[in-house]
């Protein structure tokens, strides 16, 4: 059943700019979600943190659709330390797991946070840890705790402390259109403007260290690829050749940038060594070759080509060689990205005139549609490979959607004004 849970969230940009607000809804059923209780953290020695750590952790876990946190008002007790827990109480409330914690001022300034995770029915501690934080990084600290809890309970690393880059457009189709490249936390909080322009911005791509974004901008009626440092805003123009400057993709080691250029006649794949700025041309075909995507080992580039008459996915050795077709089902397959475990591709496919996100197992003909269409595009894997974020349409408006690879409930991210598109999920940020 596809019940729409308008669970969670809120959230206002720190800047207070109305158009910077993102809202996340959980879509789909939550049957089979594991009950868990995240008890409001104890505040010691006059600590007055500006964020409710337990509610942030609970919201993170709820958004995955795999957990159903207990509302604090249903909790009969609020333990903060292991010795205060009465497991029988929590068994009666039928909660599988329990998270407790405390926050106190640290001697060195900021806060010290201690937290623990328990298996209620086994009566045992699964995780106990502590971390340093400060007023500005309380949300990040909560996301890191949620990451650790999620990993302990599912075996997969959590991605709550990662970020998402996306492009927004306000006033599309009017002379006053503003296009903005933003980065926000994975829960939509803390949106940060990277670049704002009256001209189109496209194809944001993360550096593997999560500190830079490459993107395509059309400032001054020229297309160009830029690389911009997020912390400083400093940016470098990487490519501004005649014709297309598009599809930037960092190699997994961060030393090279794959891109599409048409300076030599038509759209071809090139790889630039970012140290020397030297370009190597990888494809040479009168057809369109574009949308390069690296394999996680950096040895192969997957790309879109219509050399067979329709767009299909091909691959080519990253150091050059012969191209080999890898997608065969349907007559429109494009914009592939390789799963972090290298076993699958996520891509855009057209079926009966509708564009869906699909998951193709590499080395087999197994395909699964991950999205309903009709205009879904720009898929990007979460760094743990458990979810895909993509651009979609809702009531004719551009929105983002997140779907778990394993199935189950998804998320929809909307901006209160204008459109959101071209999501790119960051790598793990350490």
């Amino acid at each position: 059943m596809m019940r729409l849970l308008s669970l969670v969230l809120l959230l206002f940009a720190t800047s207070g700019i109305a158009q910077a607000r993102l809202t996340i809804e959980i879509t789909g059923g939550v049957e089979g979600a594991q009950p868990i209780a995240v008890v409001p953290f104890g505040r010691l020695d006059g600590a007055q943190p500006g964020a409710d750590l337990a509610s942030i952790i609970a919201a993170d876990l709820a958004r995955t659709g795999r957990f159903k946190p207990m509302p604090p008002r249903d909790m009969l007790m609020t333990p903060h330390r292991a010795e205060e827990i009465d497991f029988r109480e929590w068994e009666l409330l039928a909660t599988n797991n329990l998270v407790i914690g405390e926050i106190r001022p640290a001697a060195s300034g900021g806060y010290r946070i201690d937290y623990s995770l328990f298996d209620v029915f086994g009566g045992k501690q699964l995780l106990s840890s502590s971390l340093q934080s400060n007023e500005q990084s309380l949300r990040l600290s909560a996301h890191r705790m949620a990451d650790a809890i999620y990993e302990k309970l599912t075996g997969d690393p959590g991605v709550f402390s990662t970020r998402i880059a996306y492009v927004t457009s306000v006033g599309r189709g009017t002379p006053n259109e503003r296009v903005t490249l933003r980065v926000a936390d994975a829960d939509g909080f803390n949106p940060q403007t990277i670049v704002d322009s009256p001209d189109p911005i496209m194809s944001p791509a993360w550096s593997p260290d999560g500190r830079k974004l490459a993107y395509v901008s059309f400032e001054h009626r020229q297309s160009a690829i830029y690389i911009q440092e997020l912390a400083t805003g400093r940016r470098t123009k990487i490519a501004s050749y005649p014709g297309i400057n598009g599809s930037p993709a960092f190699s997994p080691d961060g030393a090279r940038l794959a891109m599409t250029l048409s300076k030599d006649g038509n759209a071809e794949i090139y790889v630039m060594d970012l140290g020397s700025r030297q370009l190597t041309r990888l494809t040479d075909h009168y057809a369109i070759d574009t949308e390069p995507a690296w394999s996680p080992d950096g040895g192969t580039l997957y790309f879109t080509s219509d050399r067979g008459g329709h767009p299909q996915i091909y691959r080519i050795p990253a150091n050059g060689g012969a191209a080999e077709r890898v997608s065969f089902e349907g007559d429109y397959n494009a914009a592939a990205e390789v799963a972090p475990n290298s076993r699958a591709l996520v891509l855009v496919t057209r079926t009966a005139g509708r564009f869906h996100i699909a998951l193709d197992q590499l080395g087999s003909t197994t395909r699964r549609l991950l999205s309903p269409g009709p205009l879904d595009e720009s898929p990007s894997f979460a760094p743990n490979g458990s979810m895909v974020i993509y651009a979609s349409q809702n009531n004719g408006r551009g929105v983002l959607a997140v779907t778990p690879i394993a199935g189950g409930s998804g998320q929809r991210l909307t901006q209160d004004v204008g459109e959101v598109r071209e999501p790119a999920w960051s790598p793990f940020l350490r």
Partner: protein
Amino acid sequence: MKKPLFILLASLILTPLLSGCPTTPTQSDTGLTGEELDAMGGGYDSATTAGVDAYSRSPLEDPSSPLYQRVIYFGYDTSAIDPKYANLLRAHADYLARTADASVVLEGHTDERGTREYNLALGDRRADAVRQFLVTEGVPAQKIRTLSYGEERPAEVGHSERAYSLSRRVELVY
């Protein structure tokens, strides 16, 4: 971009005076040779005094001139130029070839269906098809720049066939 207009205006106004030949404003610019246009360059300053009326006689601004139409449209997922645009493009080629300082940016566009970067390449291919047509018709390649916007700048926002067919286009921007 203003200068070629003024030169052309200067040509239209001054040619009858200088050469005595019976060129009238209703004739298209094809009534002038490239040499005549070049020769008119010296009349640039006097043309500026010709005023707004003369300005409106630029064929680019004249609704009855084929040069007034500066958008051509394409079928779905194709960069083939519809033969019905051949005369229109020849008129532009003629103008570009004969007008010393004229240059054009060919902006390629697509509808929203399909991936953004593939559409960027498709828009590039459309602009390049028009570029090749103009070059074949005698326009020096250095007078032409192509710029694909892919699906980023739709002519009409929406998900209708009408919006799609209006958006699949190349615009000739002088």
